[in-house]
């Protein structure tokens, strides 16, 4: 069965690029443009990985993770940040909120896919 990935980013171009990269690799991808909308996808369905941006309108990445970790179904779902942000303080904040890992944009497709394989296993 195809692995399902929820990708959250307010940038349409990044959503398109990530979607292309993941779909090409055979993943089933759900897209959302902010944290609040992303939560509507978390309706109990099986999701193997969540990748999110940090800075987004309505609800940012950290807030999203905090919400997700409250949901029993998704407490152990790996969550990666894919963001331009690289400050150590932000990473620590993400870690404390329950993020699994951090990747800085621009991503290299092979590296992103390797990272996904690593955390989704």
């Amino acid at each position, binding site marked *: 069965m195809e692995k399902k990935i929820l990708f959250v980013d307010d940038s349409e171009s990044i959503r398109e690029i990530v979607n*292309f990269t993941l779909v090409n690799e055979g993943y089933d991808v759900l897209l959302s443009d902010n944290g609040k909308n992303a939560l509507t996808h978390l309706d109990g369905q099986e999701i193997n990985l969540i990748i999110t941006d940090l800075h987004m309108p309505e609800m940012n990445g950290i807030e999203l993770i905090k919400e997700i970790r409250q949901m029993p179904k998704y407490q152990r779902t790996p969550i990666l940040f894919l963001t*331009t942000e690289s400050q150590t*303080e932000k990473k620590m904040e993400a870690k404390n909120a329950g993020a699994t*890992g951090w990747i800085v944009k621009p991503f290299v497709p092979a590296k992103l896919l390797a990272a996904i394989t*690593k955390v989704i296993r």
Partner: protein
Amino acid sequence: MNKELILEEAVKVFADINSRIDLLIECSANDFVILNKGFMDYNSTINGLTLHTGELFDELLALPDNKLKSHRENIRKLIREMSEIYNLANTVYQSINQLVKDMGYAFLHVSNQKQHISTLKLLVTNIQLEPSSRSLYSELMEQINNLQAFNQKLTREFSGDEKRVQSCAESIESIRQNQLPAVKQYLELYDKMLDGLSEMKAQCLEYNKQLKSLNSKKSASSSEIITNLQFQDIIRQKIEHVQEAQEFLMDRLNQQVAKKPGDAAESSTSVLKVILQIRDIGTLQAAQMVHANEEYQKAVENITNKFEELDHILIEITHLLNNFSPSVNPDSNYSFEELLKTKSYLELEFDTLMDQCGRFERMNADMIRKDEILVGSTDRLNAYIKDCEKVFSKIKPEKVITSQKSDQVNISLEVSRNFETFLHNTEEMHKLLQLNHKKIEDHIENQLNRFVLRKNKFSKELKDSIKEIENILPMHKAKAQAGDLQGLKKDLRTKKFSTNEIQYYSVFDKEIEEIITNLNHLIGLIDFSKLEKELDLENLEEIKSLYTMESERKIHSTVTGEEKEENGTDTSELELF
């Protein structure tokens, strides 16, 4: 310039920059759409082409060598055997031609009989009979008329027989001159195509390596494009950070401009502070914009360079594919399409040959059946003559005057001789017809049957061999591919990406230059001799907090001359918590 005017000018300049920044964001978004579409087009075309080409190679490589080899050997054997069949057809042709000649000779006898009957009738008419013999005369004339009628019927049958033999001769001539050479021609062409198929299969290993290498190059180029396309979003964020810094400064400026005149000394200090902020932030903004522009320009150039690479890859794959199309590549003597066409034509010509041979066999069978009837008819002809002779022997000529007596005797003798000749002629004709019949039997027994047996064996061998190869040749896919490839090749002509489509060079670069010029103009208005030479770090500290990217912080440190503290890196490696 006095301080108030500087503030007013700064408000104007920043308002102008703000609108230009909006334009930059719009331009980068538009460029992304164009570049992304260009990439998707290349990607789908190359993928489609690679898939088709790969399938073609895989199918060729999957062809079992031993079966292909044995099929080619069969076809070559059949080509060699064609001369044997051709020789047999020649023998049949000669045999039938001889029959045509023999029939002509026999027909002379039939024509002679006609002449004899006419003479007989004339002679009998001249005989003067006694009244007692007159009824016999009528009987004789009736018998002669019957003889004449039967002879006419025989002549017609003979003529029909002659025509049948003639038709057989024409039929075998057509087989010899048309159908056999056509089958041979298509067998040779098919052999050439199979030769091409074997060569292509041998080359396929190399082509497949090239295709895999091109595919790797395509993946590498695509990866670079994907990485660089993300700069649209990165640059947008950087420009937004510049815009945010500007909004911060605009707030200060507007507050300052809106201040009512109060304490002159205090006012002068705060204006000076804002002017210093304009100088410091303006300098920083200009540096950030220069860097963002360089970064974006590099990304756009990288993408367009990679498009060029994809274009080359597309051409290379097309070249690989063209090896399968003799219409495009004159050096290639192989194409699935042509092979299939040739095989179909060969089968069609072969079917025509078989039909023609079948008709020929039926004509021969008909010929011998009718000839048998003809031979039997000579007995009846003999019987008619004997009947005439019998009646004539009863006839007594009238006693005539002396002067005419000898004539009457002569006429009677002449009639008797005519009967003898007629009988002799019929006997000769019977012998000839029997001989011909024997020859036809021999012809069918030997030449024709040998030809038919050989032809049937050939037919079975060819059909079996083609059936076997049909099981291993990827006929259906090849046909479908021929159609799909036409569509893909048509697409290729419209795929080439044009850098004119992107707005970076006409808008983005120009607008950034304009913003930097405006910032420099604003900084230029400030009299530096009356200000602190060093930038005020305090002015920039708030701006620094707007940055999210390591590259932005790096520029900040470079402009301010600060020692850069290590606080994260811009790397796409996964950092696991």
